[in-house]
């Protein structure tokens, strides 16, 4: 009886939404959103859609990690206003992650360089085959090599240079291998570098190490409400596997936190010497440097997170919502796209979602809530390769819609709010 009743409700509900002439197409994935929000599939099967950005005319630019048909950037254009892309244009001969728009230029990164393309007065890329090289020769040793970018309003561009290492051991990810002291990687990686946004062919010599002690950052954003850079760090891996005497697999699944930071010039966030334990709420000494899961050591002097997110979820995008379409509570708050874990094994993986953290005056103003979910597509999963989608990029359109990209299924969603404010 109850089954009959619920299918009756379902039929009524779908009939109702059909009557309302709802244009929403949520075919691949059917991601879950809070009441009042809707997801439109802008495009799918694009390839490894990493970061995304929306131009003032509504064009969505998608950076691909790997070339698809020889191209690394896709422009999606919706010509009839239904949210679905009906024109695609691919260009750029480099794979990578970072993409941004500032002062009439599209910036995009490979794992070695940052390029830019000029927009003409019709808002088209003037010369899709000939970008200018802005920054060149950045450390790329395969691990943590993606270069995420953000621009401020003073002519600077910020580039994450991830450490090609888990915790700066003499032999990376090897049981029993000591941490190097001081860690030599920090000279050219493991931090945020600042460059001029308008100067060609800059290398390390022209850049400034803006902040250090960040293992790897993929999600970062310039917060215009307080005029500062914010980042999400990917915390270290493999505590229980490398140090089974000090950490159980259950502990490893919850420690260390993925840390949310405000980044000011000269700050040191502690990698590789320290990690943040969200249960003890402390920065602790890494076992490679003599830590045992309790000792703080030199970590008391390192910057603390503004907020600690669950371990290993892999934050790949950060977006401060400045639009007016969503309800007031979202204004200036942070959306974070989590790629989903692999390091919780042998425990079940987690993450694979987009969360919202309310913010006020550049500080968290409450706890996070899961905003978009069900990217995995069904039951929780044992391995990330089985997820249908992995959230990776976030962007806001001029009308206040939010876009989410996925580097597994290659889907881009447009999220709109149709509920009450």
């Amino acid at each position: 009886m109850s089954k009959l009743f619920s299918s009756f409700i379902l039929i009524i509900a779908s009939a109702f939404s059909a009557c309302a002439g709802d244009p929403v197409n949520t075919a691949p994935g059917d991601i879950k959103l809070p009441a009042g929000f809707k997801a439109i599939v802008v495009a799918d099967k694009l390839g490894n859609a990493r970061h995304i950005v929306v131009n003032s005319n509504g064009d969505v630019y998608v950076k691909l990690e790997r070339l698809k048909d020889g191209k690394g950037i896709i422009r999606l254009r919706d010509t009839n206003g239904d949210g679905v892309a009906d024109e695609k244009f691919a260009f750029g001969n480099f794979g990578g992650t970072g993409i941004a728009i500032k002062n009439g230029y599209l910036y995009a990164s490979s794992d070695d360089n940052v390029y830019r393309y000029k927009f003409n007065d019709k808002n088209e890329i003037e010369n899709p085959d000939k970008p200018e090289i802005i920054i060149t020769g950045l450390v790329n040793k395969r691990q943590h090599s993606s270069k995420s970018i953000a621009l401020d309003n003073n002519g600077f561009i910020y580039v994450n240079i991830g450490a090609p290492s888990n915790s700066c051991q003499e032999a990376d990810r090897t049981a029993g291998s000591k941490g190097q002291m001081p860690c030599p990687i920090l000279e050219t990686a493991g931090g945020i570098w600042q460059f001029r946004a308008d100067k060609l062919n800059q290398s390390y010599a022209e850049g400034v190490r803006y902040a250090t002690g960040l293992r790897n950052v993929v999600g970062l954003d310039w917060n215009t409400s307080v005029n500062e850079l914010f980042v999400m760090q990917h915390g270290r891996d493999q505590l229980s596997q490398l140090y089974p005497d000090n950490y159980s697999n259950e502990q490893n699944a919850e420690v260390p936190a993925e840390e949310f930071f405000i980044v000011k010039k000269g700050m040191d966030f502690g990698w590789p010497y320290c990690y943040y334990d969200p249960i003890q709420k402390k920065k602790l000494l890494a076992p490679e440097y003599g830590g045992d899961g309790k000792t703080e050591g030199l970590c008391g002097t390192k910057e603390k997170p503004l907020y600690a997110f669950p371990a290993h979820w892999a934050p790949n995008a950060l977006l401060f919502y400045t639009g007016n379409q969503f309800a007031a509570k979202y204004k200036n708050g942070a959306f974070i796209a989590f790629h989903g874990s692999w390091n919780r094994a042998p425990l079940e993986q987690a993450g694979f979602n987009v969360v919202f953290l309310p913010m006020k005056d550049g500080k968290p103003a409450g706890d996070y809530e899961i905003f978009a979910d069900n990217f995995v597509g069904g039951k929780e999963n044992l391995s990330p390769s089985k997820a249908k989608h992995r959230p990776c990029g976030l962007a806001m359109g001029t009308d206040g819609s939010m876009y989410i990209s996925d580097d597994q299924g290659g889907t881009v969603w447009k999220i709109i709010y149709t509920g009450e404010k």
Partner: protein
Amino acid sequence: MKIFAASALLICGAYLIQAFMPAQQQYDVKAAMARGKKVYDKICIVCHQPDGSGVPRMNPPLIKTKITLGPKQKLVQILVKGFNEEVEINGEYYSNPMPAQPQLTNQEIADVLTYVRRSFGNKASYVTVAEVKAIRAKLK
């Protein structure tokens, strides 16, 4: 020609050893699989995942890849020496390094390779301690 004869000899030799060593004939694959799973769950599972499917573009799958099913020489070398090269594995590249596992005994290497080659849908031949020992002796 000389090389050919020599390698033919080697192959025959290996064959003969396989055929005449009683230990080989009674190789208990089931026990080796059980021991191999223990090694896998302790060391390999975090990167290659419980179902051997790996992590996209980070750690490769061990499901029917050329290397997993291929020559044992390469497999033993990967475990003893590690593996960190920009190589294509089934059409994709993987960014993490594979750390060397020199602490593993010949027995553990034979067991874990046997486990990997006969799990996750793989059906390759098992690996014996004698094979690991012979290959390892030649690795500098």
